[in-house]
């Protein structure tokens, strides 16, 4: 009945998404273990509470947590567990399907809710339909990828679980190699987990210097910055600021949409948001229908005024 979390690491520590995956695992019965296979790994590595055992594999070949090598490593362990969970980030999305095919295990990707030990809910059609999926109860293991924004973050551990060190598997594909990671610039809160997000869309394409004002607002509010596909395509924002069906799926407490019309593909990324504010001069824009607060004015007037008032207060 055991569960194994496949941990995603960055900068030597577990990612926020991994912490939320542990939060999701709390809804399933049985002992919880975690596999951390990567390079480099910090010492000590901050761990969530609730782990009965930690499996550690630390080796330069695991830089970038390459899926070919990790699939081989996990395949050798998978039979010990009832369920394997990974965050539905680029890490989990590249590892779990490969692993599922390798060991012929059932795999349910991108779950947002757990409805019992064998029933899972996931979004489809850009989040307009929620599917309930039944896992075959007798098959082990079951693979799940977890949408981090849909589950709470686990609490930190107060004790160190027993640790087992694993040797890395011999590499069967020496030519599938990680070459490097180039982080997007910026020292703002991480978009995927920020409590407040300010995002810009097509409306900023016409407003000269508009994105610069949006960035100032984000700084003032302590917010992360997001963008729609239109803004990214127009070169106003890098690709990993994109929020939507094929970008980031986020659930901030406060989401401020500036010059965003609210295309279906974008709304798919914010369905879990707490309070939504829309600043859009077009009252008929789809985002206005789902926002909690709407200012139906030109962002070129609203943004400077908001910044001026924040400055004054």
């Amino acid at each position: 009945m055991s569960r194994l979390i496949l941990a995603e690491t960055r900068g030597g520590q577990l990612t926020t998404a991994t912490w939320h995956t542990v939060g999701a695992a709390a809804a399933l019965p049985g002992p919880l273990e975690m596999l951390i296979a990567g390079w480099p790994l910090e010492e000590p590595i901050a761990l969530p509470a609730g782990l009965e055992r930690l499996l550690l594999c630390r080796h330069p070949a695991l830089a970038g947590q390459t899926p070919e090598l990790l699939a081989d490593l996990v395949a050798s362990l998978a039979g010990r567990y009832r369920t394997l969970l990974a965050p539905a980030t680029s890490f989990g999305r590249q590892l779990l399907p490969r692993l599922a095919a390798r060991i012929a295990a059932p795999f349910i990707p991108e779950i947002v809710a757990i409805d019992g030990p064998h029933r899972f809910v996931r979004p489809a059609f850009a989040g307009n339909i929620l599917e309930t999926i039944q896992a075959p109860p007798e098959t082990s293991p079951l693979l799940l990828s977890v949408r981090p924004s849909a589950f709470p973050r686990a609490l930190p551990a107060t004790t160190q679980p027993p640790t087992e060190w694993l040797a890395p598997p011999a590499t069967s594909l020496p030519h599938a190699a990680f070459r490097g990671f180039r982080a997007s610039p910026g020292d703002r809160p991480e978009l995927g987990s920020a409590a407040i997000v300010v995002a810009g869309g097509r409306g900023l394409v016409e407003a000269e210097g508009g994105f610069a004002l949006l960035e100032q607002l984000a700084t003032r509010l302590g917010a992360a910055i997001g963008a729609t596909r239109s803004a990214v395509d127009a070169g106003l924002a890098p690709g990993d600021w994109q929020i939507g069906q094929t970008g980031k799926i986020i659930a901030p407490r406060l989401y401020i949409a500036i010059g965003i019309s609210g295309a279906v593909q974008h709304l798919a990324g914010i369905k879990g948001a707490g309070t939504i504010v829309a600043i859009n001069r077009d009252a008929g824009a789809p985002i206005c229908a789902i926002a909690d607060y709407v200012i139906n004015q030109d962002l070129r007037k609203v943004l400077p005024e908001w910044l001026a008032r924040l400055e004054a207060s």
Partner: protein
Amino acid sequence: MILLVGIKQVADPNHPARLGPDGFAVECGDAAEVPNPFDLIALEAALRWREAGVATEVIVVSAGPPSWSEGLSTCLAMGSDRAILVELAEAPDAGTAAAILAETARQVGAAWLFTGRQGVDRDLGVTGMMAAGLLGWAQASQVVELGPPDGEGGVTLLREVDGGLESRYLHPPGVISADLRLGEPRCVTLPAILAARRKRVERLEAAALSLPFLPGCPVVARREPSPRPGGHLLRDVAELMARLRPEFTTP
């Protein structure tokens, strides 16, 4: 070098998907079926490799009902050399689709399998990398930049990952799934569409292929998410700031 591209038909994503009166079937109104946008991005990348002289042949393959030959005709019009339809009564689940792609890749002797990042209907995003697992090939998902192959046929590529870009080096055979920014698919001209009608879409019976069994997980229920309650139209920034004050004062 032969490139195989997997093509799935989806309901036109610009039509909202809704549940039908039985509360289970998904209805997309009178939305036409179109090739999955990400798969066309993958095909475009393959065609550019052929045009650069890197590949010799681009083959597209779909696994689905007979009506899916329409989408393959579009792919022929874009410039594919061959199109194969593996016929099934209805669209397969991801595991079956992956098994068919893997087996077809073996049969045609492909060095690379290209797929789209995800089908915009079910948003699973698994078929390409499952095929990689079945084949035991190198893989790269969410690819936004693809370099030309080097002397040994290996490629350096960029993947869009959380927080930035990851660089990978892959030696063929390999599976690549295309993300949005890999490239804009070319438009098809009317003469090309007419010319493509003369090219034959090859048909294979799925039952004739020997496929590994991958267990599926059935959808047992569907629902639409609860709509958000209506919002407030505010007069001005001052009112907005007053309304949002709790957001910034509550610890």
